[in-house]
Structures are given as structure tokens and as C-alpha cells.
């Protein structure tokens, strides 16, 4: 295990959608600077976990501690202000705004114009296609371009922790490589990642730790390497 303390601690997190219990007491930890992956079948509760952590939805029980502070009851804009970024399921791009406006919104809470401008330039360097399309309305971007924008936008707040929901979903292999390459770089710069991925193989390769979710509970956990080697995981999620 890493010697750094946890940046995110989730304890016994529960979420109900009406009468349905979507999360039945999830506990997990992300250490500072780590990559943690959540894998599991559709409906296991991966997206719900991310949404409850960033307070896009209200948990019905349990606790979320971020950087040592209980953020379970804060509104999501306040959670984000404490150094979390969430690139949500379906990318969450503002299709009515331009590429540049989307990036600027990622830096909504920052006031350092010069720093923002240099981060926009960095995003354009990482994803040159976004530079070409900067003045275009985001609704005109392809799926892959929108995903790049989602990752670039999440980086704009200079977060300590990034939540990423299916960054590779529906994308061409080269685009997936590009995005995972950037995520690796982002992590190398000290940002912790909590990653939900249907591409379990890719996720486990990148992850220091991973949790396997099934019907709203954690059924297995370990280092990425351990889970990659586990026969159950190989059979259920790696298609072997």
C-alpha cells in the first residue's frame, strides 16, 4: 500500500432510488496520488458511487470524507471547491456552449486569469483537436472529442482528485489510448484518480488499487495486479 494518507474515504455509503437500494454500504479509500478503479457489471453501482461522492445525488446513509473533511452533506459545488473534479457519465459536456467556454467553466472557481490561460494552452497541447475546435459549439464535436473535452475540462480546476466515469466508452482504440495516456500523465503529476471503467483490463493496468462491485456492494478488492491475476475477475470481467 501507498504510505500517503487517504484523500478520499467512503464509509458504508448507501443510496436509494425510491424503494430500490442502489448502494448497500460501499466502503472504499483513495490514497493521495493513487489511481483507484471501480469495476463491475452494469447496474452494480459504479456510477452511483461516483455521483454520491461528488454529491450529484444525496446518499441515504454513510459518510464521504474528502481531504479529512466530512463532505457528505455539502452541495456539489462546495465539494468541487475543495479540490474534486468529476467527469460524469455521458461526459456532461455543455453542448450549447463553445469548447473554450466549457474549458473556462472547468476553471469556474479559479480567479487567476494567467493560470487559467496557461492551463487552457496545456489542454490544447494535450488534445490538439480541441484547439482547432475551440470556438465551435461543443454539440458539433464527435464522441471522442467530447470525451477529450470532458477530461480536459476536469483538469481545469487543478483538482487533487478526479472522478472519471467510463472515459473510454464507445471510443475508437486510438482515442482510448490517447485518453489513458493523458490520465497517466495527470496521475504522474500527483492527481489521484477514481476511475469507473467497463474496459476492466485497461483500468486494472492503470490502477494501484481496485474494487469489484456487484449489486451495490464491494465483493472484492486488491491491487490492480492482484485483480488482473484473479481467476474470478478474469472470468467475469476480462472475458476469459
Amino acid at each position: 500500500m501507498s504510505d500517503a494518507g487517504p484523500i478520499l474515504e467512503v464509509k458504508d455509503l448507501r443510496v436509494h432510488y425510491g424503494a430500490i437500494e442502489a448502494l448497500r454500504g460501499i466502503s472504499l479509500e483513495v490514497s493521495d496520488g493513487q489511481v483507484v478503479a471501480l469495476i463491475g457489471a452494469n447496474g452494480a453501482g459504479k456510477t452511483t458511487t461516483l455521483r454520491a461522492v461528488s454529491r450529484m445525488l444525496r446518499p441515504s446513509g454513510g459518510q464521504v470524507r474528502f481531504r479529512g473533511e466530512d463532505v457528505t452533506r455539502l452541495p456539489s459545488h462546495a465539494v468541487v471547491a475543495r479540490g474534486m473534479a468529476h467527469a460524469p457519465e455521458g461526459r456532461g459536456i455543455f453542448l450549447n456552449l463553445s469548447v473554450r467556454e466549457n474549458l473556462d467553466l472547468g476553471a469556474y472557481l479559479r480567479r487567476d486569469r494567467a493560470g487559467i490561460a496557461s492551463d487552457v494552452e496545456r489542454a490544447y497541447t494535450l488534445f490538439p483537436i480541441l484547439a482547432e475546435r475551440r470556438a465551435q459549439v461543443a454539440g458539433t464535436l464527435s464522441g471522442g472529442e467530447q470525451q477529450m473535452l470532458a477530461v480536459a475540462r476536469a483538469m481545469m480546476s487543478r483538482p487533487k482528485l478526479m472522478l472519471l466515469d467510463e472515459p473510454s466508452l464507445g471510443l475508437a482504440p486510438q482515442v482510448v489510448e490517447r485518453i489513458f495516456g493523458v490520465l497517466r500523465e495527470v496521475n504522474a503529476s500527483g492527481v489521484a484518480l477514481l476511475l469507473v471503467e467497463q474496459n476492466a483490463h485497461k483500468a486494472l493496468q492503470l490502477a494501484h488499487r481496485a474494487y469489484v462491485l456487484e449489486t451495490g456492494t464491494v465483493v472484492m478488492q486488491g491491487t490492480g495486479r492482484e485483480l488482473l491475476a484473479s481467476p474470478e475477475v478474469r472470468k467475469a470481467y476480462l472475458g476469459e
Partner: protein
Amino acid sequence: MTEFFQHLVNGVSVGTIYALIALGYTMVYGVLKLINFAHGDVYMVGAFSGYYLGTVGGGGQPSFIRAAYITLGAMIVCGLLGYVIERFAYRPLRDQARLTSLITAIGVSFLLEYGFQLTPWFREPVPFPPGPSPRFFPTLLDFGPAPSLEFLGVTVPKIDALGLVLALALMLLLQHIVYRTRFGTAMRAVSFDPQVAGLMGIPVNRIISMTFVLGSALAAAAGIINASSRPKIEPLFGLMSGLKAFVAAVLGGIGNVPGAMAGGLLLGVTEEYVAGYTSSSYRDAIAFAVLILVLLLRPEGLFGRATVEKV
């Protein structure tokens, strides 16, 4: 030909009033997907705020400073009113079915219309509520012996010309706020997806409050501009203008800011021409005929984008 231009000028003058009110409808719809049917009554309250500000303390002589004070004062009063309406009537129902808010909006509308018709609770310094009988809006500006401009046979009262300039300036200012400022970008983000807007660190509730404040202040300005030219005001006069402004917003594409401006102007001019060349008894029917046509032929409005309602 002179008649044609005279109608055009009159139509634009009325149209800017519709446009200013329509902006409030469209912005609130943008962020909340709510038709705020109380908005026409906020316009009425705007005119009454100006009336009270102008009559308290005996009035004073018409002057630019007084006109500016009354206009800004009414905008502030209505901005606060808009804030209060959102905070206490709509926000507690935000998570309920949309129909609940819509019915509440009609309730707020009745509250303002009939609340203002009550017998006054007190008479000093001014009677409030004003009660049902019409009152006369004070003269804000005195243009002396030549109160109208004339060119090519078209007569334009100077107060109307000034109102038109003010309305256009406010629309340009709003356009700038919505498309060129951080607040405006946040507002457009909230209108697209409030949850994801929250993830950007945008305080969604504050943006929604500010949207009501802005829309209500514009309605107040419309109330003042209208009452300066047509000074008879009574508690129900916001009803028809409000409904017509709503038609204007739908015509332009509800949720679309430039659309509301264009829709208001277009509706004002259409109304004026039809009333002018046929009979003025058709005036009020025009707006609703337009609404029916838009809903039948182009429900997304002239500038709106077609969206599929998700089931």
C-alpha cells in the same frame, strides 16, 4: 405610406415592452423549465413601484434624475420581489413534479393581482395596497411645448422614443451579460444541465436566484416605460401584457434570449399592423392566433432548436 411607418413605429414601441417582459419568461424557462406565470404581474408591480416612488413626498418636478431614480428604484424593488418569489414559492417545490410549480406560479400571479386590489391597509404616506381603481402614473419627464418628434409625417412622442432607446439599451446589456460574462456562461450552463453545472463549482441556486432578479428588473423597466407613455395603471393590467409577452417568448423559441427580443418586436409590429389595417378589436386576438400558429407549425419557435421530449 406615412400610415405604414406610423404603425411600424407604434408596433416597435409596444414590441420592445413585450420583448423586455418576454426576456424574463425565457430566462426563467431556460434555467428552471418553468413558465413563470406570475411574471406579467411583476411587470404590473414594477409600474406601481414607480408610481409609489414618484408620489411619495409629494412627487417633485419631472426631471431626468427623478426619472432615473424611479426607474432604477422600481427595478430594484422588482428584483427583490423576483428573488422572494423564487426563494419561497418555487424553490421548495423544485424536486416536485413540474406541474406543481406551474400551478404555484398561477397562484403567485393571483396573489399579486388580487392582493393589489385589496382595500388599503394604510393610507399614509400613500395608500397601499392600491385597490382596484386605476391610478395615474406620474409624469417623469417634461418635454415642454414640443412633446413629440416628427419626421416624414410620422409622429413619435419623445417619451416613447426615450423608452425605446432605454429598452434597446437594456436588451443589449442583457445580451452582453448572457453571452460575454462569467455569470452569463454559468447561467447558460445551468440551463443546459444544472447537475453538471454544480460539478463545475457553479452555485446553481444562486444563479437561479440571480436569473429571477434580472428578469424581474427588466419587467419593472418595461412597466415604467409603458406607464410613462400610457399612464393608466391598475392591478390587472399585467395580465394581458404578460400573456402576450409569453406568446412572444414562445414565438422566438422559449429559452432563447435573442429569440425573446425578436419575438417581442415581431408580435408588437404584427399586432399593430393587423389592428391598424383591419379593426383594433382584433388586437388582443392576434397574439393568441400567433401562439396557435407557432404551436401548430413550428413549436420550437423561430429561433429555437427542435428537441425531443424524453419520456
